[in-house]
């Protein structure tokens, strides 16, 4: 009798709802029944409302059951799930679940399919194809390919990756670096975490390609301390990839070196800003640097440095493997390719949705997300992390692309989408944005360091005191100073959630809507 293969995710979000206990229950129950089973700990498919999502390999394909609790396991065996049998928790063939079938997974095509640390799995699912191609190309050709693909920085700033790489490639220095920004501190985002926990070789491959393209021989992955599983998986993946010759002194046998090291962050949100991150890797307080000089010319330890977000680097392998034309064909306008959107907060079907740019927030909220988890109406949606604007319903049909969002004062950012139902108090959320900025400001520039504290106070005066309109005037003036006078996005974008809350939900501040100016 051949063993039945069960897939039980090892992603943090699956572990946090009991995936280990479910895996143990499956093993114990199978033993008791004398059934041979093999349990693969895969990454998550990103259908988090169904986690722990157990898949069973059947002749028809992998069949999904979820959310599975340990106490469901005996009944699932009784129902014959080892052969794909019917049960209330059965969702059919995983890849036909609409949430997944309607996506365009380019970067995330292996996510949840493979065992994250298995080199054989990675190889069998198109792994290393991009690096193998790149290792036979000139650095200029690699940079041109990335430039032509239209890939832009997925961390939020959306700067063209190829242009940044070209600057570093053109710099002369004894040592250059590639630094991956994995300090994914934005609430509502988890695509970096999923990548590192669920498909770490993809990031390694992307960084190695970046190294070859710009002539860097050393790379760092700067990972949040709040992500211990990601740190552990990346460290082990780097060890295995080095042993297999994909990293080290002779990448893919082409004589060029690229080494990689994980650096663990220490809980400072502002270290997601690239220059603060460099300071932190250098062993200092994560205080933002003034630019220029650009990190591309004087970055880590003063040397030319490519800094990209996890998703940017993880997308490079598919660009090289399938070609720039293939990738740039996805998307709209100047937003080429796909973005792994992250549906979070009060949403019924939360999870990862990779789609080409150009879909609308409404499609994400209702098509994929199926509305709120609480069943109440959606009130506000924050797009692009804690520094992103609250997008009102009048804009839910705008295409999600960098320029369209910028045109109405919002940002796509890292693609995090946090949904709030009608119980949300927008004045409290605006106050929280200022409070968070005060807590996390690095302190280098005054608008951010002091403006955030004054922001909390003035919002309190608006909601509690008399002279509301005078205080609103003061808040707008303060936000203007922060927007224009801050050194980085921390202070410079905190006004986005604050002003959008004030503009679109004035009643929550105790202000009559008619006084609202057109948004």
């Amino acid at each position: 009798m051949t063993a039945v293969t069960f897939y039980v995710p090892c992603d943090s979000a699956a572990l946090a709802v009991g995936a280990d206990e479910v895996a143990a229950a499956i093993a114990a129950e199978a033993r008791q029944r004398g059934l041979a089973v093999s349990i693969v700990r895969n990454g998550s498919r990103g259908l988090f409302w169904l986690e722990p999502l157990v898949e069973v390999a059947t002749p028809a394909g992998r069949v999904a059951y979820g959310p599975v609790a340990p106490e469901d396991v005996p009944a699932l065996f009784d129902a014959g799930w080892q052969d794909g049998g019917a049960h209330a928790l059965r969702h059919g063939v995983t890849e036909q679940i609409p949430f997944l079938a309607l996506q365009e997974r380019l970067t995330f095509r292996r996510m949840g399919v493979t065992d994250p640390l298995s080199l054989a799995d990675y190889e069998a699912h198109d792994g290393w194809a991009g690096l193998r191609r790149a290792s036979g190309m000139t650095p200029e050709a690699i940079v041109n390919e990335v430039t032509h693909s239209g890939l832009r920085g997925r961390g939020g700033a959306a700067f063209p990756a190829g242009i940044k790489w070209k600057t570093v490639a053109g710099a002369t220095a004894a040592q250059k670096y590639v630094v991956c920004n994995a300090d994914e501190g934005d609430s509502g985002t988890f695509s970096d975490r999923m990548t590192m926990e669920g498909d770490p070789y993809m990031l390694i491959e992307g960084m190695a390609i970046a190294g070859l393209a710009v002539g860097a021989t050393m790379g760092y992955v700067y990972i949040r301390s709040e992500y211990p599983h990601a740190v552990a998986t990346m460290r082990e993946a780097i060890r295995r990839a080095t042993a297999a010759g994909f990293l080290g002194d002779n990448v893919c046998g082409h004589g060029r070196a690229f080494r990689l090291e994980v650096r663990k962050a220490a809980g400072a949100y502002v270290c997601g800003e690239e220059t603060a991150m460099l300071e932190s890797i250098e062993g200092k307080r994560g205080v933002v640097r003034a630019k220029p000089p650009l990190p591309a010319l004087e970055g880590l330890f003063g040397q030319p440095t490519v800094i990209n977000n996890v998703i940017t680097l993880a997308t490079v392998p598919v660009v090289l493997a399938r070609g720039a034309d293939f990738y740039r064909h996805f998307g709209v306008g100047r937003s080429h390719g796909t973005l792994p959107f992250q549906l979070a907060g009060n949403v019924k079907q939360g999870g990862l949705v990779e789609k080409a740019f150009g879909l609308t927030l409404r499609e994400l909220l209702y098509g994929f997300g199926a509305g709120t988890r609480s069943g109440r109406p959606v009130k506000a949606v924050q797009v692009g992390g804690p520094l992103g604007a609250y997008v009102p319903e009048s804009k839910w049909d705008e295409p999600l692309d960098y320029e369209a969002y910028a045109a109405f004062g919002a940002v796509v950012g890292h693609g995090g989408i946090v949904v709030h139902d009608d119980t949300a108090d927008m004045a409290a959320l605006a106050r929280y944005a200022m409070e968070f900025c005060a807590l996390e400001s690095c302190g280098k520039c005054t608008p951010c360091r002091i403006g955030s504290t004054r922001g909390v106070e003035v919002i309190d005066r608006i909601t509690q005191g008399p002279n509301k309109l005078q205080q609103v005037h003061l808040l707008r003036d303060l936000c203007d100073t922060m927007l224009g006078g801050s050194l980085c996005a921390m202070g410079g974008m905190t006004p986005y959630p604050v002003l959008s809350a004030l503009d679109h939900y004035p009643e929550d501040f105790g202000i009559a809507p008619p006084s609202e100016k057109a948004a």
Partner: protein
Amino acid sequence: MKLIPSSAQDLATVSALIAEHRDQPGALLPLLHAVQDALGHVPDDVVPAIARALGLSRAEVHGVITYYHFFRREAPGRQVVQVCRAEACQACGGEELLALAERVLGCERHSTRADGAVTLEPVYCLGLCASSPAVQIGEKLHARVTPARLQSLLAHVADTAEVAP
């Protein structure tokens, strides 16, 4: 702040970690992580040795330790409870969970209970935003936490505290 001198064994541990990390580029954060992993916190009296080894002033090392939320200068409680306060968790009742944890544990946020059993901290994003609200107790993550579930998780923490000496 209580000044409890580090034991000779702890100081020896720190010396070994310094030797292991001092030649690494940008050694301070990896070294501080190693010290905290080994001792549970970074005691003030190991700062001079770290500063000397890395060619930094004590003020610089102190500045780094106090800048980052993750590093602790004092030993935490026997159990650390972290409740996420970020927006995605707020949207699903995270703030209520934090208030509940304060009541059930008899311990304010950012503090360690007098009996040393538990430390309660807000945290800003555990990356479980599609399965909010999220809580971490020790090393273990918990998502889609309801008030009832939190109460039963904390009952274990609090019970442990009661039987502890």
